[in-house]
């Protein structure tokens, strides 16, 4: 922690601004942490070309409502982080375009304001109308409110209002004073990204605890991450088929997803890979039988998968709905700092698996799939291409795996380095996940910060639907399939 440079705010502002001018750099986390002298701002900037992460900090006084210069004026992508700091601690950001509440956290500074009374952005006009959707939606899906401003059928503006899922995960993480509890909680940050979040959490704690991760554990985690990607991409392709009334595709892909999640079931007894990954040891080590099950299921999956998806992308009725729908341009994507698939479908090769490889990705020499059209079709196609890539990776990794089925690592004792700071990055199926932890001088967790890809990408959805028909909203929404609870925390 002492090694993180502390700059005065002007210096910090200039340094962060300077780094973000480099097109290979983006901010992976920017947050505030209360310290004795005031509020410490910590900004982590990843450089994709240099494969590094730079961390800078600044301490501002919290007495009499501080107002500091907003970085968002120059770098729009910082808007969400500044809103978060404003909402939580009341720091003013001079020149910020809109300090809209992020998620109404229980420990927000303004506890008078209520989520239910939130004033939505409005435009007064006799020709426009508003459409409100949610918070409770019409399907089996998490809550969030969407407020459209439309001219006839055309959407002019979409405001997305979230926070209905806020459970106080970051605060709760500090109370989980052993590795098992922390990892179990991390699995529930987003139940569709169990491997992504749990790996990030385990990596942070392993770094702070100085706990080694064996070759086989790295392979198991990476195989699990790719299986999770295949499962969720398949589910999303199925949902996209449903939305454009390609019933055959929807049904076949549903059944194919079952094969993949049942692979997890056979491996660890849970269809979402809960309990598979733990800090420093493997409760369910890979053995010969598991390898055989995985390989057999992948073969069974692949043949039927290719058949139906090739058909899907040949169908004029599907393509007519996908092409040029919900376009987000490369310039917009850069502006809002989108990550993961949302970035890679608009020509920005942002992928932690390549830029900051972790676990077994170091050995895979991963090249991100890159598409350029930024429309629903690109977001469907990238899933298809990534699934095929993941199938290849899993087979390659299992060939490298030492399948003795024995795990030599004992359950590690809970001990963290005092006054430590650790950051971990993983590439979940949606995009990059960043966990940061800080310990106090006794080695107790003092602060935990989670950032999920959706934090950036919800804005991409809001931009995607502009000038589209409101009836295309469902297909646009599914093409992103962003996380509510990962955003609300």
């Amino acid at each position, binding site marked *: 922690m002492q090694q993180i440079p502390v700059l005065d705010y002007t210096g910090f502002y200039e340094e962060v601004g300077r780094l973000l001018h480099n097109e290979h750099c983006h901010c992976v986390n920017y947050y505030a942490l209360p310290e004795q002298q005031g509020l410490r701002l910590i900004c982590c900037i990843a450089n994709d070309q240099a494969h590094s992460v730079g961390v800078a900090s600044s301490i501002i006084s919290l007495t009499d409502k501080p107002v500091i210069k907003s970085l968002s004026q120059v770098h729009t992508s910082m808007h969400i982080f500044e809103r978060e700091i404003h909402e939580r601690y009341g720091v003013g950001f001079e020149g910020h375009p809109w300090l809209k509440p992020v998620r109404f956290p229980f420990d927000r500074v303004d506890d008078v304001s209520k989520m239910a009374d939130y004033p939505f952005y409005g435009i007064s006009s006799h020709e426009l109308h508003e459409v409100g959707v949610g918070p409770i939606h019409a*399907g089996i899906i*998490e809550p969030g409110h969407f407020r459209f401003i439309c001219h006839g059928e055309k959407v002019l503006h979409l405001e997305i209002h979230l926070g209905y899922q806020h459970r106080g995960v970051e605060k709760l993480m500090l109370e989980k004073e052993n590795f098992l509890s922390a990892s179990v909680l991390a699995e529930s940050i987003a139940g569709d990204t169990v491997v992504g979040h749990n790996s990030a959490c385990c990596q942070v704690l392993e770094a702070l605890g100085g706990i080694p991760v064996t070759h086989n554990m790295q392979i198991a985690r990476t195989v699990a991450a790719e299986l999770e990607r295949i499962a969720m991409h398949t589910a999303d392709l199925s949902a996209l088929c449903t939305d454009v009334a390609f019933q055959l595709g929807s049904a076949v892909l549903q*059944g194919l997803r079952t094969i993949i999640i049942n692979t997890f079931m056979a491996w660890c007894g849970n269809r979402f890979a809960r309990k598979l990954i733990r800090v420093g040891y493997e409760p369910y080590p890979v053995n010969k039988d598991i390898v055989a099950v995985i390989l057999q299921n992948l073969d069974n999956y692949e043949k039927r998968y290719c058949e139906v998806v090739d058909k899907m992308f040949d169908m004029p009725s599907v393509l007519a709905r996908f092409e040029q729908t919900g376009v987000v341009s490369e310039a917009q994507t850069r502006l809002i700092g989108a990550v993961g698939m949302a970035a890679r479908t608009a020509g920005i090769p942002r992928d932690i698996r390549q830029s900051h490889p972790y676990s077994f990705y170091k050995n895979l020499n991963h090249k991100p799939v890159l598409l350029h059209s930024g429309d629903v079709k690109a977001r469907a196609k990238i899933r298809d291409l990534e699934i095929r890539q993941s199938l290849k990776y899993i087979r390659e990794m299992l060939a490298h795996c030492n399948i003795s089925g024995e795990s030599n690592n004992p359950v590690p004792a809970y001990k963290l380095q005092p006054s430590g700071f650790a950051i971990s990055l993983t590439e979940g199926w949606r995009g990059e996940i960043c966990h940061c932890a800080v310990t106090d001088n006794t080695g107790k967790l003092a602060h935990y910060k989670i950032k999920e890809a959706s934090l950036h990408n919800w804005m991409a959805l809001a931009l995607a639907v502009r000038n589209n028909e409101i009836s295309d909203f469902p297909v646009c929404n599914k093409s992103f399939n962003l996380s509510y609870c990962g955003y609300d925390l």
Partner: protein
Amino acid sequence: MLRTIKIVKHQGRQYIKNLQQVTLPLLNNGLPVISSNPCPAACKACVELCPSEAISKDPLTVNLGQCVFCGECVSCKEGIIRFTNNFRIATNNSSCLAVSSTTDHIFFDPELVRKEIIKVFGRSLKLRLVSDGSCNGCELELNATDNVNFDISRYGIEFVASPRHADGIVVTGPLVENSAKALELTWEAIPDPKILIAVGTCAISGGVFKNSKALNRGFFEKHTPDLYLPGCPPHPLTIIDGLLKLTGRITAE
């Protein structure tokens, strides 16, 4: 056209014909069994290990309403707790969720089911989901109940888009303050008679989020669920089994 026929042919029969005869792998995912061998009096290893405060001693009890099925407690040297692959763990009486050494199945009490539930919803049940702080795990499994494999709609059970069309609500998640109003409004919007179902450990007890200040569990203080479906998340077979018992389609053993 030929391609379509080929796809359909390769797809084969996906639905599980008899959901009562499915066997799950033996990997810490179903009903726990507690050995009647006494464990050392001073030992509290499993109680302290449990990440969701599900285990208590004297007598040794695993509360399925709090258990997240992480399976770590089986590491006990005495081998007192083990998990079976019995997915039939739904009940309508929350006190039946406490598993002790005398428990060999989770009791579902047909006497406790309100008369109108079987009379009105026995052949057709339309449900509305309210996700209240859930991680999306339970939602994925609820969605899966109606996929090509489990096909819950064969029993006339469906998830509908509006509370006005629904006969009851399914609640997932630990119940959070920010959604408290939306949940109450949805419940009020459903016409009587209506049923309430708690899905997942979070909904039943708060689960791993139990001690968070962001929760507001007032709704469950006012309204008592007609059915508890434990699990993290519950397997589609657990969900279907519970719903069939509640509507009197299968009798509890």
